[in-house]
């Protein structure tokens, strides 16, 4: 069972969605490996999963929910101390032109 090889374009698309810049060698390597990976996964297509609900989370007790109660926030200097670049009391990124609010 062999799937179609993953193309360079597909890897570039996935890299764009993942926001990772790739070198030419990486593009080739990951395209090859992703082809194998998809091959490995394709065995899952062959088993009968009709009507089988997916396991998404896994706990043996209900996942706890929280009451709407205030908890302390981080002091601002402590939060901003983590920031690689900060300005005007916030985390700074290169200027976004016409970006979404």
């Amino acid at each position, binding site marked *: 069972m062999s799937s179609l090889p993953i193309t360079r374009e597909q890897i570039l698309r996935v890299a*764009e*969605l993942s*926001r990772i810049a790739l070198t030419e060698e990486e593009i080739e390597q990951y395209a090859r490996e992703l082809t194998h990976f998809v091959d490995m996964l394709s065995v899952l297509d062959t088993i009968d999963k009709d009507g089988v609900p*997916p396991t*998404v*989370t896994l706990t043996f007790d*209900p*996942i*706890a*929910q*929280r*009451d*709407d*109660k*205030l*908890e*302390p*926030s*981080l002091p*601002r200097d402590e*939060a*901003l101390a*983590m920031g690689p*670049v900060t*300005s*005007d*009391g*916030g*985390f*700074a*990124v*290169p*200027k*976004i*032109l*016409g*970006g*979404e*609010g």
Partner: protein
Amino acid sequence: MTRYEPVIGLEVHAQLLTETKLFCGCSVAYGAEPNTQLCPTCLGLPGSVPRLNRRAVELAIRVGLALGCEIHRDTAFSRKHYFYPDLASNYQNSQFEPPVIGRGELCIEVDGVERRIGITRAHLEEDAAKNIHGAGGGLYTVVDYNRGGQPLLEIVSEPDLRSAEEAELYLRKLREILIFAGVNDGNLEEGSFRCDANVSIRPVGQEKFGTRVELKNINSFRFVRRAIEFEIARQEAVLASGGALVQETRTWNENVGQTISMREKESAQDYRYFESPELPRIEIDDEMIERARAQLPELPDAIRARFIEELGLTPYDAGVLTSHPGIARYFDAVASGMKADAKLGKRIANFIQSEVLRDTQIAGLDAKFPVTPEALIELLSMVEARTINLNLAKQVFHEMVASGKSAAAIVEEKGLGGGVDEAALEAEVLKVIEKNPSQVEQYRGGKAAVFGFFVGQVMRATRGQADPQLVQALLRKHLDG
């Protein structure tokens, strides 16, 4: 020339009235210093664990009930992925299919005709942070994560709206319901009630929808209307000149009075929705629904109907007294405290509208009244008992507002209580007639306007306590008789 019909659908992002964010205990209060309401969870720090705020789910159910929508019993949070600095994890916890709230509808009245606008769905999601452009001397965009993770309900309408006016009416109606239901503060400027509009046009009679433009970030009702009107005209002009419309996102620029195309994305998004591997499913049982129903306050349409039918209000007055939930509650408290019927209800409404509302301060969901309903009940009860008349009641009311004293204390202090009995009043009337022979002559000579002079004299003599109607009757008896 082809005639076009606009097709409009609205997406409203309503911030749910919780104390804390959707997945952590940070405050959602508006106006805090940037980046002071954040924690490992809403900052997406490694090792943090989200914990769902159950209140947000309760409020979502309440919205479903208020809008008469289907409530889906078992739905999930899904992650919507896209890289942008306003998402601390570069994904948004939202709902894909199905949403917690399903189909319903909302009635609006357009030129006296009822229109039913379909609601497609409403889903829970976390808000994005705020990007502040041009900070750091214009070098940077700075991110303030205070808003990130606040609970939103996105309410999506069917493309059932056919004009900018209808869109505005729908939004006003929806906002009113959410405010009265106690789930949203309806504040457009602060962004707790935000609207995006999908606008397209199609030749009248055509079934198929035209190319859709999404109008984003419109932050006032006036702008909604202007933006949609502009957009309809723009689309018509493009088609009339033989051009083609592109599916795009535009934003309203108030300065130029136009919608402006937002920069197009380099390539189509793929949000890679998948059900959250860590958040609980939203499971809703009968008990939760019943509890939400018990907590659902009376909605404005029902309140207005009751005010009109039971408390004798005109539709106009009912509208004024339901312009804010606090005002409706205030009127209700006074009316029920006085066991008002239709006649008394109307009198109470008049007094509140003419006197109380003048000194009432509205700030968001808060309404600050000059006197408590109990204090007003005490005052108006004196009028009903004819202890004082309405004019005096107004003076006493202003004294109450100024001094903070009770109506009884003021009446007592100024010796206003008790009114004037008919015999004493008749004596006063005769005294006034006796003292002013020349005016009596003028009156009897046909100068009817002098009558007011006599009324004034009698009222002054009784220090305003007399019932003006009785004064008039007695004067007529003795002057005309």
